[in-house]
């Protein structure tokens, strides 16, 4: 987090040459400085979580919920039966692959569609009024409520799942992009106005670059949601092959195979974290060198 604030505190307003030396002599950005707390923090939480899990397995389930402990198998059992057993592992990994595929395609559609909508909304206030309320409505609509509609409209296959995925993940991209496009300050707009810049030039050279930090925040949130959307979509639309991880988990639930169920959950969570980290890294690469507060 040490790169949040720029380390170059330029001393005074002196003649160029003098300051240049001071700047050159300044140490490189403490970007590279490794903070142990960033590693130890999550590790401590993880160990505590495992201990709590083990405790719940041994006696907590019975004490608090009056349920048998096998419904929450010990972490060791989960690792053993879900990941160290070749058959279960193969099934789960294969399922994760299908889910990741649907989530990726869904996210791609979300990004293209969400950004397009945002650019339309950014063009005129009336366009924003015409579109935005329906995005909010879409965001608030439970998937369950429109399952019959989706089933009626789409043929079997990947279509319905993609629809659910996009429906769940589009809002953050659209709203963040819109916010970003409107974030260039009025002085910068005046600058482009005085230069007689066309609408397209203004969009390309002012609004889109200015929007990048917000857009990437939207990407990161939507990416996580697209994984959720893909899994939710699998719950409702199982036909058409492609047994995603949600379907695999459901199969194991019917067979009452708890270790494999939790193994599947761990994998989905890992996919979510991976996607989140990837977009965090991408944000840093794209806007980190100029944006004030890139994390």
């Amino acid at each position, binding site marked *: 987090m040490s790169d949040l604030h720029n380390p170059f505190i330029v001393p005074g307003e002196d*003649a*160029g040459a003098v300051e240049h030396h001071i700047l050159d002599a300044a140490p490189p950005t403490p970007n590279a400085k490794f903070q142990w707390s960033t590693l130890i923090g999550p590790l401590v939480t993880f160990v505590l979580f495992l201990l709590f899990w083990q405790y719940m397995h041994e006696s907590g389930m019975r004490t608090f919920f009056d349920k048998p402990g096998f419904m929450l198998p010990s972490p060791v059992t989960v690792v053993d039966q879900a990941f160290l057993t070749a058959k279960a592992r193969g099934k789960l990994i294969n399922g994760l692959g299908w889910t990741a595929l649907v989530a990726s395609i869904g996210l791609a559609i979300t990004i293209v569609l969400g950004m397009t909508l945002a650019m339309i909304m950014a063009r005129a206030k009336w366009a924003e009024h015409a579109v935005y309320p329906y995005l909010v409505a879409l965001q608030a609509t439970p998937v369950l409520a429109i399952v019959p509609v989706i089933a009626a409209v789409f043929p079997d296959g990947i279509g319905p799942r993609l629809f659910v995925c996009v429906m769940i993940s589009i809002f953050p991209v659209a709203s963040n992009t819109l916010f970003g496009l409107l974030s260039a*300050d009025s002085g910068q707009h005046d600058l482009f106005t005085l230069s007689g810049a066309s609408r397209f030039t203004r969009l390309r050279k002012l609004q889109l670059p200015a929007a990048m930090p917000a857009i990437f925040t939207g990407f990161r949130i939507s990416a996580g949601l697209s994984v959720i959307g893909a899994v939710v979509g699998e719950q409702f639309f199982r036909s058409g092959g492609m047994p995603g991880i949600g379907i695999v988990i459901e199969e194991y639930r019917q067979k009452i195979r708890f270790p494999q169920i939790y193994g599947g959950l761990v994998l989905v969570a890992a996919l979510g974290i991976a996607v989140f980290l990837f977009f965090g890294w991408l944000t840093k690469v794209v*806007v980190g060198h100029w944006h004030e507060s890139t994390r």
Partner: protein
Amino acid sequence: MHDSTQPETPAPTMVTRMNDSVSRPALSFNGVSMVYPDGTHALGETTFDVHPGEFVTVVGPSGCGKSTLLKIASGLNAPTTGSVTVDRTKVGYVFQDATLLQWRNVQHNVELLAELAGVSKTERAQRATDAINMVGLGGFERKYPKQLSGGMKMRASLARTLVLDPSMFLFDEPFGAVDEITRERLNDEVISLFERQRFAALFITHSISEAVFLSTKVMVMSARPGRIVASIDIPFEYPRVPDLRFEPEFARISGEISHALRGAHA
């Protein structure tokens, strides 16, 4: 500067420009007034000229319509009445904030206006380099705005305006946000640019000493609706040195402007 293959090097052009058009005003306000749609009467009827080689500063209480005056001069706002004569292609506008694009380094920020005007890549790079050196930012070409101090950002903003070699500068309280020491250094910078290029300038400020130090003429504006209530010629010769600020005559003129301002405020 650099080798003289570039026709746009500012140094040689200024002399000819000065001789060409001494008689015709670079900017002319004719009975201009401004009432905003919400009914705010920002600017009362205003008439004045700025000739090439003149550095005219407008001082006034905050909210008196100084910025409105400049927005009208640049064409950003259309006046409610009256007319403005100015060659818009020759106008350079220096904003209140540096308004640098945060995602561009100094070099590319300075190139921006030339880029928007369709100047070729090599040509605008050369012009930007010249402008950056002229404002004393040499060596900072690759720095991003977040790495610059407030004063350096203003220098970059100045350089950006210089790239199109304007003959009419509009300054909208450009140094209002920087500290006194930095402001004086930036004033020295503006003065030396003016001494070299003798453009026409309309400068907005609420600092009397800045106004007296820079200008050939200071106009005092009344509170809203802004009207020009006094126009005071500043007799000091150029080049002006920083110590001019401590001359008794400097203090006397500052006092005169201060009185006019107080009268305008009442």
